[in-house]
């Protein structure tokens, strides 16, 4: 949490995920080159390199775009959310190599990028040639597909450059999120880039079909996850005369877990822990993660996305951290009578200021 920024947040687990990620990327590129060369040994190695890195980036983008909806559908995918940022930055660098190549002094790995290969003959600056080389801007099929790639690469650059937590805090989460929603624009541009690129070079239609399958997968997954969310938010609860909302029974909530309900236009997480009930706003201060899908660990509500922690009775991160979220007054009805499990939980509809202490309801 924000007690001084670290440069890169690596722990053992994240490092292992990153190593697996990079090994997979390296293996993919090696296999792509070997197979393509095997099919047609007359191909120019530089063209193969460009396509290997471009397709590696595009495939990784599919993985990245799948993680969000998948982890909405099943908590099994939560660990991948932690690494999505590193995947995004890795993808940007793969795309960058696709475009400008790789030629670092001292590094044995050298590849040619699309910019050098296609645009570095004349006396024009390759960058200028990129924009003016194909001028069919008014045509659909002949449209300069490389310009679509430029747009996508620019979006990926801004996203990678603002991926550090510093940016989340300084741009604020809503703006940062809006910016990172640009990934969908980039994805759309790339579908055009790849399909038009393949069409214009009269390649096998398999490429277009594969892009189509990817598109159906990404859109389908998002629709599925989205329809579930909408169903939950429609069930908004309204308060009775005393301003409290009946959110259900104690028995409904497993120990150290929460039930999520929608009150006052946003979700509330009602936690059960140590024989007590506390309610806090469901929205994590870090990146708006769903706190109600997290657990109480070491006495703290722990966000399932990146592990920010809050004390359940006051919505504040344990010192020295400074994050605070709104809390809600809670009470139980039917105290003392009948089985405790049947007691109903009531949550006040009006939230308290972030960090306000509220006595937990004792079961």
């Amino acid at each position, binding site marked *: 949490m924000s007690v001084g920024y670290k440069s890169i947040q690596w722990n053992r687990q994240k490092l292992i995920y990153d190593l697996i990620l990079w090994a997979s990327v390296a293996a993919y590129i090696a296999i792509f080159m070997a197979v393509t060369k095997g099919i047609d040994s007359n191909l120019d190695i530089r063209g193969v390199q460009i396509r290997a890195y471009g397709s590696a980036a595009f495939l990784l983008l599919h993985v990245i775009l799948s993680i969000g909806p998948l982890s909405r559908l099943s908590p099994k995918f939560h660990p991948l959310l932690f690494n999505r940022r590193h995947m995004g930055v890795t993808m940007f660098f793969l795309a960058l190599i696709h475009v400008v190549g790789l030629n670092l002094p001292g590094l044995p790995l050298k590849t040619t990028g699309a910019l050098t290969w296609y645009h570095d003959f004349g006396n024009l600056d390759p960058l200028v040639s990129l924009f003016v080389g194909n001028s069919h801007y008014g045509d659909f099929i002949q449209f300069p597909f490389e310009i679509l790639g430029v747009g996508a690469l620019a979006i990926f650059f801004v996203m990678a450059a603002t991926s550090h937590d510093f*940016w989340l805090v300084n741009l604020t989460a809503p703006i940062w999120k809006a910016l990172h929603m640009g990934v969908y624009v980039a994805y759309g541009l790339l579908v055009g880039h790849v399909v038009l690129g393949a069409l214009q070079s009269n390649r096998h239609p398999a490429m277009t079909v594969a892009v189509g399958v990817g598109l159906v997968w990404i859109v389908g997954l998002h629709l599925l996850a989205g329809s579930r969310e909408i169903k939950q938010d429609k069930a908004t609860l309204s308060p009775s005369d005393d301003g409290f909302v009946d959110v259900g029974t104690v028995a409904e909530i497993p120990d150290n877990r929460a039930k999520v309900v929608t009150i006052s236009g946003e979700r509330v997480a009602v936690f059960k822990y140590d024989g007590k009930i506390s309610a806090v706003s469901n929205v994590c201060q870090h990146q708006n993660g769903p706190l109600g899908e997290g657990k109480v660990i070491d006495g703290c509500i722990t966000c399932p996305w990146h592990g920010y922690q809050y004390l359940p009775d006051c919505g504040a991160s344990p010192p020295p951290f400074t994050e605070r979220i709104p809390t809600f007054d809670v009470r139980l009805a039917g105290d003392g009578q009948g089985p405790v499990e049947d007691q109903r939980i009531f949550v006040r509809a009006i939230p308290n200021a972030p960090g306000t202490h509220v006595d937990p309801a004792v079961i």
Partner: protein
Amino acid sequence: MDGVGVAIAETLIKIVRGYLFAGLVFSVPFVIFGIQRVDPSVKGWNVLFRVLILPGLSVFWPLFAVRLVRGKRHPVERTAHRLAAQSASHP
């Protein structure tokens, strides 16, 4: 493409390069001297952290220049619950 097209492309590229370069000129002294006034969570002398945020600063530098001049920090985000809590305590 004709000469006009080339001239337009060249000019646009120059503008973008100029903007990013100006950003770098602002950002290098900013991460050394000014950043802690805008975001007090920047603590100590972590050089790699400062290098990592340089590319983004070169894009968003006007935002930080304005905050630095006005002596402001980043705002806290407003959610439905935060707004409701605020209007309940200051009716």
